[in-house]
């Protein structure tokens, strides 16, 4: 067992790029992404898991970046909004957000997109009610949710149509 320490060397993959850094034990994943790697697309709203603005993918699953220590991502594969945008993986979802006016200030949007992307991949046939339930973990303080649900629904329908 590694003895208890205040800082650790970690190696992980972020958006396909291998990264190694020394991190303080107390640093959470979102601060690591923002402060150490300059990936400021993951936002910090509440910093206690309520708002969802910090949502990222770790080993393919969405998580709250503020509720995971950076050192717990040692060996993991992390994907942020920057990676998902650049790869084109969610271009259809982003287009739907644009077309439906699903953002105003944009602060919640990266978290919204990362959360919605999971639903898009796993259950593109989701009903409006299921979309609302899935997106309930992400707060928006300006647009309201109607247009966000509209955008996610439109992207879901399009993905389902392509799969058929």
């Amino acid at each position, binding site marked *: 067992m590694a003895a208890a*320490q205040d800082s650790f060397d970690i190696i992980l993959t972020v958006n396909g790029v291998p990264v190694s850094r020394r991190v303080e034990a*107390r640093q959470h994943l979102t601060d690591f992404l923002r402060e150490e790697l300059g990936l400021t697309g993951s936002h910090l709203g509440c910093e206690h898991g309520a708002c969802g603005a910090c949502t990222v993918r770790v080993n393919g*699953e969405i998580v709250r970046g503020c509720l995971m220590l950076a050192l*717990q991502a040692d060996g993991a594969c992390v994907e942020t909004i920057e990676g998902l945008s650049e790869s084109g993986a969610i271009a259809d979802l982003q287009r739907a957000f644009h077309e439906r006016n699903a953002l105003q200030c944009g602060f919640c949007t990266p978290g919204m997109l990362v959360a919605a992307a999971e639903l898009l991949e796993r259950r593109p046939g989701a009903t409006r009610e299921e979309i609302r*339930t899935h997106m309930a*973990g992400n707060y928006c303080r300006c647009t309201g949710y109607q247009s966000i649900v509209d955008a996610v629904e439109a992207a879901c329908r399009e993905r389902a149509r392509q799969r058929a």
Partner: protein
Amino acid sequence: MKAAAFAYAKPSSLAEVFDLLEQCSGEARILAGGQSLLAALNMRLAAPAMLIDINGLAELDGIAVNGETVRIGALTRHRSLERSAEIARHLPLIRLAMPHVAHAAIRNRGTFGGSIAYADPAAELPACSVALDAMFRIAGRRGERSVPARQFFKGLYETDLQPGEVLLGADFRALRPGYRAAFLELTRRHGDYAVAGVAAHARFENGRFADASLAFFGIGARPVLAARARAALEDSPYAPETVAAVQSAVGADLEACACGDLYHAATTKLHLARVLAGRAVHALTGA
């Protein structure tokens, strides 16, 4: 806010966990999913000297069905419970509860054991464990012991876990023929902590209820098993008089322990508990 500085260790055996817990003598916290603990650290509601990360203990993770017993390891993620065909088949109450446990991103990391050991009065899994009369498995330096869920929750965030001990998981009795489950909760936003909720389990055969367990949460400092409601349901048919009797019994069961929170008075919670009781009785008929 940011967490205060702490040391971190990731042991690879329970013996090492016990060593670390002893070394820190009350200054360490065990880190499982971290979905409540890291929030508390970020808000500086807690500032332990050390986090002992038990995510390296693979033996604490998983769901195992052995005859009539379903064993859930402390490190089993909420998402695993939610997606498990065995849980859906043998412990439908837990299956029904899972979508109410926070949000998808939190269920991906949050653990069964974390929810039980943290003992939030509004959390779903402690109430399910009480309703289903689960047995919790706890280990310490001197060996293992078992504690019934119905004796484990002592008060607000207070459990029977002693310093130096670790929750290993829980054993549940698999669903028996004729038994049904109902899980209902009221929240301001789907996935938030419950304003009031009920985890219910009963036999409903030939039009009559028997052996009912209704555990209410979000009402008092810990999950509360409604004894008078159980009596009101015993050998009763599904009828308006039964529903009224159960609702009245629930009021009596919960009156002494109901406490208000920032947004809801105790009387509001009692009212909501009676409303949920009525809905739960209906849901237990499976109709």
